[in-house]
């Protein structure tokens, strides 16, 4: 057993008390996200694993198998905290306050031997510094996972294909149309054309903030693919400023049916499928019955 581990093991209770005190007095403590009991049992578990790792006498390499358990616990804590909405500061403070507690105990224990104190502190510091790095890395990874999940969700909900009428599909596009999204839009649209046997698809770009040549190219590709499936495509929602921009850019959309609003696109679709929508004069009918 290494001497450092002995010192620390002897004062295990004091370390945990000091550590808890440090954590509880920190202004950034989030008792709304985690109860004190939970915090204590978590801290206790980590300290036990850490002292066991110190016991091995390995203070150089936290990535060795001696520290497997410590890192596992830390990763667990970081990821949970990232998901619960802790800030990086709060999560980082967790390991840093342990370092303070360990240093306090070592200082007391070795106050007569400054040389040994320096050696011991340096060893534990380097381990705990590496551990706080790992905590940060994992914390960020946890956050990134949240972001990736949201990106997926956005991609999924952002391209709905709506069946507005028998044989007529509408597809409102909101946001920037990049290559990846065009792919999703096209896939969804073509699949839905097959599923419903629709003959007309309306692509509404009211929610697309800017149409540059790349976006236009993606639109043209989607229209061509729809035509290959035997369906006709109407692009609607072309605002006045977008129309001017497209003309200046020199994009040729003359082969594609375009309309300013979804309503007029729907009207065009009705006339193409020989559907007529009429207003019924109920009053006239009432009078006749009289």
């Amino acid at each position, binding site marked *: 057993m290494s001497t450092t581990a002995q010192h620390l093991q002897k004062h295990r209770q004091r370390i945990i008390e000091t550590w808890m005190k440090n954590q509880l007095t920190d202004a950034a403590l989030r008792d709304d996200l985690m109860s004190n009991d939970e915090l204590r049992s978590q801290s206790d578990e980590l300290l036990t694993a850490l002292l066991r790792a110190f016991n091995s006498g390995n203070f150089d390499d936290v990535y060795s198998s001696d520290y497997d358990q410590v890192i596992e616990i830390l990763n667990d804590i970081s990821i949970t905290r990232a998901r619960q909405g802790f800030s990086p500061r709060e999560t980082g403070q967790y390991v840093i306050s342990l370092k303070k507690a360990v240093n306090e105990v070592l200082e007391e224990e070795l106050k007569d031997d400054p040389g040994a104190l320096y050696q011991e502190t340096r060893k534990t510091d380097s381990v705990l510094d590496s551990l706080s790095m790992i905590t940060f890395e994992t914390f960020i990874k946890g956050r990134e996972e949240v972001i990736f999940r949201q990106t997926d969700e956005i991609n999924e909900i952002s391209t709905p294909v709506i069946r507005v009428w028998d044989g007529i599909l509408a597809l409102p596009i909101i946001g*920037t149309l*990049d290559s990846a999204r065009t792919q999703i839009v096209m896939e969804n649209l073509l699949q839905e054309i097959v599923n419903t046997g629709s003959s007309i698809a309306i692509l509404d770009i009211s929610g697309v*903030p*800017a*149409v*540059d*040549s*790349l976006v*236009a*190219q993606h639109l043209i590709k989607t229209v061509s693919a729809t035509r290959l499936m035997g369906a006709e495509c109407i692009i609607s929602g072309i605002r*006045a*400023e*977008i129309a*001017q*921009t497209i003309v*200046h*850019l*020199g*994009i040729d959309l003359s082969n594609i049916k375009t309309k300013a609003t979804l309503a007029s696109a729907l009207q065009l679709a009705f006339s193409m499928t020989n559907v007529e929508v009429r207003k019924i004069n109920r009053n006239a009918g009432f009078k006749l019955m009289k």
Partner: protein
Amino acid sequence: MIVMTKDTMQIVREQDVVPFRNRVREYAAKIGMSLVNQTKLITAASELVRNMLKYANGGKVLIEIISKNAQTGVRLTFIDEGPGIANVQQAMQDGFSTGKSLGLGLPGTKRLVNEFDIKSTLGEGTTVTVIHWKNGR
């Protein structure tokens, strides 16, 4: 010509395009540019920034509000250290593209903005400067 506000943005990924466009929109709106002119400028900016990403793996953009002869406008300078353009004259023709795009980016951009300047040296990079005045003239 007086430069009133100055800002630089690094463009390294496709995800940088949308924040960059929003920044340009902010600047254009700040000087009171009309919606049509805003859209023209933003579309031009979008074209150029995409070119920069596609052919030069990114670069940086200088966004400035400038004033000249009692006119205000937005000047964008796109600086990349990519391979450069071999034949600028050819690149400025409609429908010419070394990639598989429509080939409208550079000539289209020139039509969208009031002033357009391109300098390119093979192996050193390309600098494109565009100016769009508040009233679009």
